[in-house]
């Protein structure tokens, strides 16, 4: 147990040290802090973009999802790869526009493309509503990991406070560089841990991956294929498409694109990232290995499948190593989210009220807002508000609403007016929120339709409403004259 605690503490210290070293004697002005001086090569951008693959959600959630629900988890493997295909075309355009106009955040992009500060405010609000629950999820995951890997010796609240403090310090000091540098260690650790667990556990417990799946198929018929209704094949296809489209609309990933040094960085990553995505298979294997070994976990406890199995099979030193990797999966994405949220608040919300603010004032304010963002997230984490899970679902469908307006703005002649983009995003977000909070499904809204259509991901309705409103409003409003050089 002491070994486990020591490794977890070491991970926390290493994250802090690395986050601070990342600064490298640079003057952390707005360009350096928010977009790394736009000089990141393909490996750092790879790690920032891949950050999304291994958050605590993947580490705990994907194994728990495999354990609890079986086949529907496959969608996670599919959507990431397709998102990178979209990124091949999307991100070079976002990057070059960002470089040309000195953009630092996702709302900046909308403000400039549509020459509309009010659209920037709307996008900032949509982004914040999505980001805060995502940050809360990372902190909640951190609490679970440290408690489980530390055999309960570290109180959950203490772990959350310490984690939040570490992230706050290194984000203020090093900005996006802190996230990129800690991501190096995070990805090496997670690669080692996940490959080891995903290969060793099926081999040791079942005699191999094939035999493991054969035994599960025999014990739980239907568990390894999509069910006939609910999370069916129709659900799988619609969910993969929606999440692939929404993937790079997350403001932290979108803004990370500005940090690249050239456009080829993204195209090269469209080849490398799908392969990297395969590591997820091994997370699934761990979850599936737990199915017949630690049966009976229900609801939120399924997230503990990985740790239950690990503490059953391994010595505390190994459990500690898994915990150390887990700490990084919470802190690294957490740092990028916290920085993005602080940047949005400073530049795109408060900045609208004080347009005369200089870059130096904007970045100074953003740094002060990092602890504020973290405190809000810690508050929600500790109060354990049940609506936070719903909010996260809302968050995902919220950012997806930005996709149509982004794509239209990248066309040579954008037919969408600022009012059209604004109305579309607003309506899409409202519909998404209502659907999430009422737990509506396509089936509950339209019970008469065929089963395959009733199983479609409900997010499609919000996106459809968005597009219809965007088109109609664009047709009845006149395009604003776009300032020279803004296209």
């Amino acid at each position: 147990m002491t070994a486990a605690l020591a490794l977890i503490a070491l991970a926390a210290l290493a994250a802090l040290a690395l986050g601070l070293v990342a600064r490298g004697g640079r003057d952390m002005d707005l360009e350096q802090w928010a977009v790394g001086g736009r000089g990141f090569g393909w490996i750092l951008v790879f790690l920032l973009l891949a950050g999304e693959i291994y958050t605590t959600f993947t580490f705990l959630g994907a194994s728990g999802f495999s354990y609890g629900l079986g086949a529907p988890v496959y969608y996670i493997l599919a959507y990431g790869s397709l998102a990178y295909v979209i990124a091949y075309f999307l991100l070079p355009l976002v990057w070059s526009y960002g470089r040309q106009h000195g953009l630092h955040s996702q709302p900046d992009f909308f403000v400039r493309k549509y020459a509309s500060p009010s659209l920037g405010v709307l996008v900032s609000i949509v982004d914040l509503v999505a980001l805060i629950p995502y940050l809360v999820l990372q902190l909640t995951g951190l609490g679970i990991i440290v408690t489980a890997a530390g055999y309960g010796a570290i109180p959950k609240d203490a772990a959350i406070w310490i984690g939040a403090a570490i992230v706050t310090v290194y984000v203020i000091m090093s900005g996006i560089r802190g996230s990129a540098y800690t991501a190096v260690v995070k990805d090496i650790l997670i690669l080692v841990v996940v490959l080891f667990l995903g290969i060793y556990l099926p081999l040791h417990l079942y005699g191999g991956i094939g035999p493991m799946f054969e035994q599960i198929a025999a014990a739980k018929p239907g568990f390894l294929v999509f069910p006939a209704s609910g999370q069916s094949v129709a659900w799988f296809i619609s969910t993969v498409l929606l999440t692939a489209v929404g993937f790079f609309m997350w403001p932290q990933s979108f803004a990370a694109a500005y940090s690249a040094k050239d456009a080829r960085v993204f195209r090269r990553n469209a080849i490398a990232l799908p392969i990297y995505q395969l590591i997820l298979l091994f997370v699934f294997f761990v979850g599936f290995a737990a199915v017949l070994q630690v049966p009976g976990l229900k609801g939120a406890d399924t997230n503990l499948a990985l740790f239950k199995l690990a503490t059953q099979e391994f010595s505390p030193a190994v459990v500690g190593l898994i915990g150390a990797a887990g700490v990084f999966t919470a802190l690294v994405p957490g740092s990028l989210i916290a920085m993005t949220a602080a940047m949005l608040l400073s530049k795109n919300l408060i900045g609208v009220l004080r347009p005369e603010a200089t870059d130096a004032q904007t970045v100074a304010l953003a740094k002060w807002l990092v602890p504020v963002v973290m405190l809000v997230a810690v508050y929600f984490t500790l109060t354990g508000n049940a609506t936070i899970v719903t909010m996260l679902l809302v968050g995902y469908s919220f950012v997806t609403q930005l996709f149509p307006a982004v794509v239209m703005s990248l066309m040579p002649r954008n037919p969408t007016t600022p009012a059209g983009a604004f109305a579309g995003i607003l309506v899409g977000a409202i519909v998404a929120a209502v659907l999430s909070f009422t737990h509506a499904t396509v089936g509950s809204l339209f019970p008469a339709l065929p089963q395959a259509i009733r199983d479609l991901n409900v997010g499609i309705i919000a996106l459809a409403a968005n597009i219809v409103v965007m088109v109609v409003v664009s047709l009845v409003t006149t395009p604003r004259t776009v300032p020279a050089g803004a296209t």
Partner: protein
Amino acid sequence: MKPIHWLAVIPFIGMLAGPAVHNEVDPFILGMPFPLGWIAVWVVLTAIIMAVIYLIDPANREDAP
């Protein structure tokens, strides 16, 4: 869109068609149930297709430093 870019449609069709056409455990692919094995194979094929596009795409020569 240059003609070569249309190759990027293939991963979408390939990835999603497998489970849609054959949602059964057997036959196993590389020790995995069919839908999972199919998706895993297509992840690799996606990378290969993107590599082909990358090599042919003139954009990667235009903005060479």
